[in-house]
């Protein structure tokens, strides 16, 4: 009888450990997306290439609630993930630019490096410059790249950690436009 108790205890603990080892450590909860909270506002300077079209600074609240926004946190030192997703974002932006606003937030970077990155991939969606990364803290960001999908009402719908691929991005865009 007591032998069985030990077997049960070992099996139970083993099961718990097995479950724990198979959890994805990158799947961290996002308070914003879970509760579908309003996207935190910020005002930041735009990177020079975008100033002609978008002005010197960009205030997120000016664009919230008008159309969905895809907010992408990136940095030039974030290799390879940011380099993988940059062409994917640019391609989707060209197809969706009249329906969804793509907005890059360059964090903890040097402006020269950021400009080199922008030039390398020919990114035409606007990016703001946040060298200290304070906006990231407001969004509960863990690390670059991270993408937030904000719906037409200005609420955070999804947080995607890591490089975003074509199919996942397409799914988010379809979902937010529904």
């Amino acid at each position, binding site marked *: 009888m007591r032998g069985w108790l030990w077997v049960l205890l070992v099996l139970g603990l083993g099961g718990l450990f097995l479950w724990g080892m198979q959890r994805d450590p990158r799947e961290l909860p996002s308070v914003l997306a879970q509760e579908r909270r309003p996207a935190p506002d910020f005002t930041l300077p735009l990177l020079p290439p975008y100033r002609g079209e978008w002005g010197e600074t960009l205030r997120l609240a000016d664009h919230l609630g008008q159309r969905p926004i895809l907010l992408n946190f990136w940095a030039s030192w974030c290799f390879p993930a940011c380099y993988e997703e940059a062409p994917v974002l640019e391609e989707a932006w060209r197809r969706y630019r009249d329906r969804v606003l793509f907005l890059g937030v360059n964090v903890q970077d040097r402006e020269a490096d950021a400009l080199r990155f922008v030039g390398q991939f020919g990114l035409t969606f606007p990016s703001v410059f946040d060298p200290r990364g304070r906006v990231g803290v407001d*969004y509960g960001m*863990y690390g670059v790249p991270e993408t937030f999908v904000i719906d037409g009402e200005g609420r955070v719908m999804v947080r995607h950690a890591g490089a975003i691929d074509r199919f996942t991005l397409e799914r988010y865009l379809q979902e937010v436009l529904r």
Partner: protein
Amino acid sequence: MGAWAQGEPPPDLSPEVFAIARELRCPVCQGESTAESNAGVAVEMRRIIAEMLAEGRTREEILAFFVERYGEWVLYEPPRRGITLWVWVLPFLGMGLLGLALLGYFRPKKALPPEVLEEAERRLREQET
């Protein structure tokens, strides 16, 4: 959190800032606290703590500020309620069980019944004679 200057050097931070930062997990480098890490986010979080302290906010308010954004995951000490209460209770439960097991193992063995002892003594005497 409205106005801030971009690119200014980090302010001289008081030990109080680090005391609070030690209770927060660094979001990028998950094994470290915000006090130990030099990741950009951790540096910025220390700066935010310093600013909030300067505004006269309490330790609880500052921790709540980060929990609001990152969830309870960001706290190094899991809250003593809900599912994480188990983290606090289990060690004591384990110690209790271990204590019981040790007690059972080292408990003085029951003395042999008198008739067995008498029998043994009788046989001993028989051998001697």
